[in-house]
């Protein structure tokens, strides 16, 4: 079974540009999460999809970040316009959805974003 995949693995852009990150969850996983780790800090939650619906976007830092999950399969996270403080590693994770039980989240390898 393929794991969570993310594209690209690295992205270097200039301040003010736009970048779109993609996450392909494990097939059949309804839950999809985005997290990020900025330099020297802990991994922080950004948002959570259940299928195509945004369940929780309380971690999104501002309106420069837009996440979508059309069709409930892969997800994209767009940053527009990018700022220096957006640099970091963006992780995607997915999990099964079975009632209210906690299910293990499987993480992708992350996308390292560098904003110059």
């Amino acid at each position, binding site marked *: 079974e393929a794991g*969570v995949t993310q594209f690209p693995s690295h992205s270097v852009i200039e301040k003010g540009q736009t970048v779109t990150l993609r996450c392909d969850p494990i097939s059949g996983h309804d*839950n999809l*999460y985005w*997290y990020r780790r900025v330099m020297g*800090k*802990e*991994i*922080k*939650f950004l948002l*959570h999809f*259940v299928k195509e619906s945004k*369940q*929780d976007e309380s*971690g999104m830092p501002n309106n420069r970040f837009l996440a979508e999950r059309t069709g409930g399969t892969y997800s994209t996270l767009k940053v527009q316009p990018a700022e220096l403080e957006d640099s970091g590693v963006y*992780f995607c*994770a997915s*999990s099964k959805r079975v009632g*209210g039980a*906690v*299910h*293990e*989240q*499987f*993480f*992708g*390898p*992350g996308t390292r974003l560098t904003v110059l």
Partner: protein
Amino acid sequence: GESVGLHLPTLSVQEGDNSIINCAYSNSASDYFIWYKQESGKGPQFIIDIRSNMDKRQGQRVTVLLNKTVKHLSLQIAATQPGDSAVYFCAEPLAAGNKLTFGGGTRVLVKP
């Protein structure tokens, strides 16, 4: 606010020795914790978890201890190997959506 944090940023350990990684949490109502391992170039990988009705849980070469009195948990790695070199995070799922709150991470460096 609720937080899960780590005491030591870097732990250097001799191959074959045991490693202990510590984590503190602030919410006394927390009832479930997870340890993740993140190797270079990879995402966090589940190692072991523990519920608050337990004080100790063992896996393969790893043991997690939970002290609810002082709101502290630890991950012990027995006979540390070079493949154990990674950053280790404690984490706690919150709210109905199980979003994870992570500690700051401890880097374990295994010396040959």
